[in-house]
């Protein structure tokens, strides 16, 4: 069982940014020693509030950003300089805002043909068109609907589908989806989420789903990692992490979701962070400033990762010594 091939391995990934001038330089560890694995055919969710470093992780995986330390192993090895095509062919991405993904003055099908050309996926125009049509059909559109039209003629949900179809052209084995539904209307959001579920089941693809929306994460993913200020606070199967959260931060996140049920209105108030980078610079556990169960040790020492009931937790509450 342990021999199952890991598809993407992230090992002790760290990224540091520097703020301010030479005199008042501050180091911000945006991603701090993050490790996780993505297996073939699974939806892995990376969740957390804005500014927790989840997009930085995605940018490093895609090679837009050089990690300060740590390794990203794709199919068991590190991609070399000249292997960009090989690497990106297996790994495609979908961005948050479908209206910004496409140039409003260019026809949408240009992007599709361009991808076919860049990866040399077809020998002639006819073959390219067939391939595009097939991929568009798998997201519920067709080539006739799309060809010759501009982005303004589509709704946000349709553009996001076209964006997914484009990434499917190279037959990738991993999709990195950075907040793919947060700009899409709630009424059509589920059609995109269901599409990801189908991709996983029918094309046996893996999806790295980056989001702050825990409800859709619960609905579609298998594994989940909760990030806070650059650290993974809790990681494990979604059913355990979200239905029975251990870390106080996961509990806070879980309680902050407005349930679609007027009988479950929130009671009580919660504490907020006012200044983001103060939390980044904090010694010890980054969450100590807002945690309802802070102890002395939390302010001095960063908690180690331990496993409780098959779930990775970083919290002093669970350290017995």
């Amino acid at each position, binding site marked *: 069982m342990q021999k199952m091939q890991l598809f993407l391995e992230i090992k002790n990934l760290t990224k540091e940014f520097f703020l301010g001038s030479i005199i008042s330089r501050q180091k911000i560890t945006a991603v701090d020693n993050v490790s996780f694995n993505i297996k073939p055919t699974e939806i892995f969710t990376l969740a957390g509030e*804005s500014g927790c470093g989840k997009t930085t992780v995605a940018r490093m995986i895609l090679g837009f950003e050089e990690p300060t330390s740590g390794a990203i192993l794709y199919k068991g090895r590190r991609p070399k300089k000249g292997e960009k095509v090989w690497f990106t062919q297996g790994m495609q991405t979908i961005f948050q805002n479908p209206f910004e993904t496409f140039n409003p003055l260019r026809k949408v099908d240009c992007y599709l043909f361009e991808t076919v050309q860049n990866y040399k996926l077809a020998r002639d125009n006819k073959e390219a068109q067939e391939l595009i049509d097939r991929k568009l059909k798998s997201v519920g559109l067709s080539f006739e609907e799309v060809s010759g039209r501009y982005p303004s003629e589509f*709704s946000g949900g349709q553009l996001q589908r076209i964006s997914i179809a484009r990434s499917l052209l190279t037959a990738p084995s991993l999709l990195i989806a950075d907040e793919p539904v947060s700009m899409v209307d*709630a009424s*059509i959001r*589920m059609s995109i989420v269901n599409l990801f579920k189908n991709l996983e089941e029918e094309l046996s693809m893996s999806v790295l789903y980056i989001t702050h929306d825990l409800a859709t994460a*619960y609905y579609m993913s298998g594994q989940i990692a909760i990030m806070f200020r650059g650290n993974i606070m809790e990681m494990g199967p979604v059913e355990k992490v979200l239905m029975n959260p251990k870390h106080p931060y996961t509990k806070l996140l879980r309680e902050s979701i*407005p349930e*679609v049920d007027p009988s479950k209105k929130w009671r009580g108030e919660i504490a*907020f962070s006012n200044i*983001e980078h103060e939390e980044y610079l904090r010694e010890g556990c980054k969450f100590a400033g807002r945690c309802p169960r802070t102890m002395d040790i939390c302010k001095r020492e960063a908690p180690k990762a331990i496993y409780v009931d098959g779930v990775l937790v970083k919290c002093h509450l669970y350290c017995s010594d």
Partner: protein
Amino acid sequence: MADDMSVLTTQNLKSFYVLNIYGAKKVVKAVDKVDLEIRENEIYGIAGESGCGKTTLLKTLYGLIKPPLRLIDGKVFYVRDGQEIDIYSLSKEERRKLRWEYIAYIPQGAMSVFNPVIKLKETYRDFLDSHLTGKTKEEVFDMAREHINKLGLPVKILDAYPHQLSGGMRQRVAIALAALLKPRIIFADEPTTALDVVVQRGVIQLLKGIQEILGNTIVLVTHDMGVHANLTDRLGIMYAGKIIEEAITEEIFGNPLHPYTKYLINSLPKFGDTGSRESVPGNPPSLVSIPSGCSFHPRCPYAFAICTEQMPELFDAGNHHKVACWLIKEGKDAKDAIVS
């Protein structure tokens, strides 16, 4: 029944964007025959997809009509001290005086409204200066400090520049600013969109707090049904420029009548239930060419003959639950006819 006094009513409100592109006239029917009655001391929610006219409705209620938007028909009445005021009969100056003191508007993306080169307390002073006269600088700052403190925000933010605060904090400061002069009605346009869950909860907490302190009315527009379930007392569902269903929030969630509302509520994922969820089929209609009859009929699985011909009127289905749907109006017989 003093609580049930209405504070804002509209009659047959129509406001369209009239565009003239190279001689071709294009009419966008953003708000089409809307009758509202919003009461004192309640939070009224308006839900719908983007492009259904929610924001235009708020602008029309607030009196922000600028070309190409035009008020085609209908009236908006505010009730102030027992008197009805038709806002479109007022002069510009009179309307300006009503703003912020009687009605306040929190626009979409309110977090970016602040002047980036002055401290927030100066923004507060600018704001107060234009409405109150004969106060010294210190008195004004004290007022601002007291106000911020009462709403549970840290007072030190007044000495900060906008860029030093996070987006969620700025959003809350903008909302606090809107409540500064104790308006009787606050319009909030998508106040929680683009914020993450924890910050969103903070914003909702603040809006609720303001409403409890002032005992006023909030009209909240958002497409997030979770926020509506948590915050609003009454809810109107908007589709293609019209209100198609309106009831007490508990009633809407417990017993949605319109097929569109049913889809909206049932499509949302819930914790502890990974059963498959379907979203509304098809795409929202363009407001330039609204389908004939009931505007939802091309997406409605229950549509029958009359739906394609005639727009159903909003009627009371009992229990103050209003709905505009032929299926409900024609009753169960029609429902059986379609099923068979």
